[in-house]
């Protein structure tokens, strides 16, 4: 996990701790407040809901974190959700191999592969064609979403693809299999965290995100690493698409239409810097939990949608401000 230290001084370490882990504090405070003020917050049903809701964006957010650590962004993650969902659903429900023992594994494989494919396309655009990730992933997102809708219109007469074998839904946590998606998410989160904090690859990600030029001169494989980051993001989106499809029990081309904001908000509020070079998986996990908590409260309290949008926006602003402030970029030398 990343730590940065601000100025030394009598309260330097408190400031340091607070800035690094403010999201954890925020999360705890929020949770406590919810327990106090939201009726039925602590009920087993709501707790289960909360966990499953956070799983809904956990994996994909962790994936996108990798890209943000390099100062980039991945808009296409939500398109992977949609694309993966409709292709996977098609394979499992309507394709020639639907309802055979191969259907579900093939479907899962397809969904994950689509994630990898989109990630690879993004990687190629950014690394070889030298496009900024903003443009490259925006383009893949638009193409991907379009393809998802078009494909659905071809293979189904409804707005979604239904008819997936019921066994698949276990991955989404239905009927007593609640733990399944949670365990999958946990495993991936731990894997991602290990990758970033303990391995050579992780060190390179942070170094390159901090200063790609210096990293290049120090002999690091910058192009390869950036490519892998986009690949990871796509892969995570692909895995998320499996869980999302299982949860929704259908292939939905509009999957993910509204979650991009939550994903980015979770990452930024969690503390990963948009400039790249600092942040991490654990921070994003806290961010995701926080956003889910927020969404949960909104539902339980019946608050209007725009209020929550306002709050999320403000928090992102504050988080970004803290980010810039703690880096104290000196633009003018006097």
């Amino acid at each position, binding site marked *: 996990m990343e*730590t940065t230290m601000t100025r*030394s001084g009598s309260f330097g370490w408190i400031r340091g701790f607070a800035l690094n882990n403010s999201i954890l504090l925020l999360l705890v405070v929020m949770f406590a407040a919810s327990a106090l003020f939201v009726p039925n917050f602590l009920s087993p049903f709501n707790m289960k809901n909360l966990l499953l809701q956070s799983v809904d964006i956990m994996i994909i957010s962790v994936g996108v974190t990798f890209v943000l650590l390099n100062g980039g962004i991945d808009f296409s993650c939500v398109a992977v959700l949609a694309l993966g969902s409709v292709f996977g659903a098609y394979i499992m429900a309507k394709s020639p191999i639907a309802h055979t023992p191969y259907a579900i594994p093939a479907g899962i494989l397809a969904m994950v592969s689509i994630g990898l494919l989109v990630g690879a396309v993004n990687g190629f655009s950014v690394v070889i064609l030298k496009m900024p990730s903003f443009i490259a992933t925006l383009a893949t997102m638009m193409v991907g979403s379009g393809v998802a809708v078009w494909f659905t219109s071809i293979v189904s007469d409804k707005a979604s693809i239904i008819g997936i074998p019921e066994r698949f839904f276990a991955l989404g946590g239905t009927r007593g299999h609640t733990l399944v998606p949670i365990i999958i998410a946990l495993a991936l989160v731990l894997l991602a965290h290990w990758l970033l904090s*303990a391995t050579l690859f992780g060190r390179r990600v*942070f170094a390159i995100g901090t*200063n790609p030029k210096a990293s290049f001169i120090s002999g690091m494989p910058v192009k390869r690493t950036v490519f892998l980051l986009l690949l990871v993001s796509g892969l995570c989106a692909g895995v998320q698409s499996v869980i999302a499809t299982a949860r929704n029990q259908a292939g939905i081309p509009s999957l993910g239409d509204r979650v991009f904001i939550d994903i980015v908000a979770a990452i930024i509020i969690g503390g990963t810097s948009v400039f790249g*070079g*600092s942040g991490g998986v654990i921070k994003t996990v806290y961010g995701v939990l926080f956003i889910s908590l927020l969404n949960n409260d909104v539902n339980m309290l019946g608050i209007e949608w725009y209020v929550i949008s306002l709050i999320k926006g403000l928090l992102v602003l504050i988080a970004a401000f803290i980010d810039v402030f703690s880096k104290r970029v000196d633009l003018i030398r*006097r």
Partner: protein
Amino acid sequence: MPSDTILALRQIAKSFFGAEVLHGIDLEVVRGEVLGLVGENGAGKSTLMNILGGVWLRDRGTMELNGRPFEPANPKDAQAAGIAFIHQELSLFSNLTVAENIFIDELPTGPFWSVQYASMRSRAQEYIDTFGVQTTPGTKIASVPMGVRQTVEVTKALIKKAQIIIFDEPTTSLSQKEKENLFRIIDHLHREGGITVIYISHILEDVFSLCERIAVLRDGALVGVEQTARLTKPQVIKMMVGRDLEQIYPHGEKKIGDVVYQARGIAQGKAVQGVSMELRSGEVVGLFGLMGAGRTELVRCLFGVDKMDAGEVIFHGRKMKSISPKSCIRNGIAFVTEDRRQEGLLMSKPVKDNLVTVILDRLTQLLGMVSRSKESQESEKAIRELNIKVYDKNRQEVKSLSGGNQQKVVIGKWIMRNPSMFILDEPTRGVDVGAKHEIYVIINDMARHGATVLFVSSEMEELMGVCDRIMVIHRGKIVANFTKGEYDQERIMGFALGGEGS
């Protein structure tokens, strides 16, 4: 103040990070004159002009313009007061036209803020005719040659009613014809416009032919201001470099071995024009040159940071097939860049992270995991051996270290790899005297252990103190080679300025 003094600087002093770079400069500029300003890199010319131009605030001293106190808080103030600064890197907009650039700060507007293009075009045409430039007001700057761009900058200055125009190294990217044209323009400004010109350049012939007086800066102090007619070039060179060599350089027994590094015909654009060199093990070879000579471009090519157009490198008898940082590092070459903040360090990361950057792969064990204990050990070792002053290597960010310590971190990260060849580009820039000495000791130690060192610097004194021989580079070519016994400051500077020392 006498009425013909347009600008008076008194006791101007400036420090950066605790090191004083200008020590109380007193200078009076005569109205309408062309004053030459010369000095080595680091002498303080740019700092002084930046203070005049409002880019930096002076720490002490006063300035008077036309008899009234002059204290620009920013470049705009200075421009408004009539000071135009034409930098080496021109500030033009390549996607806009000649006319638009000329009037960029004062676009003539009519009703409803509409821009009066017709009037702009005709006024621009007037200037184009006066200066005899081969262009039209509607041509985009991107397609216009350097000489014309410079004229556009001058015109911009005139539009803003500049009284003093400062030229900073204006001819480095100009052809001979364009240079002559620039001189004609300066002459015109001087005679017809009564404009005062301050001309900064390394090219002494130009300074001598253009300027009425020459001011020489050395180590942040004004060594002298004199009528050009009363000066000779050798005299000016002596004023630029003459000083005692302080005994801050390490000595020690050292063996110089065989040739291990050969570069042949390295070329890149206009900056590097066919450079070849042979370096031996245990040798510390200096590369001296002034700004724009091509030093940094050359070493960046050697390490593969920038692509060279032609040339080959043979290291330890084997030709290097592809030259990139990765391949150089693998072969045992290290490169300390000129700009440690942008390219040498991860500023916001702790000292430990920076120190292990180049040896990360060596610290990696199974499953790709980096060994934290080894990381800690190795970085501790480097901190001890290089005497890097840091109180918490795991958490203290490298940006909070002093310049000298930062530089030691950069050197440290490369030393960890045990390279057999070091390329150092200005390793003591922005470093205090104490740390400079430590770095010289480190360089000497490296060489004593058999490493080859290529030491690029614009500080002649340190090269003379540390190197076994010094190559001089001028306009992309190696023009001279001095071995230890034959070091002569004036001759070296003479070659660096171009021509055979005079």
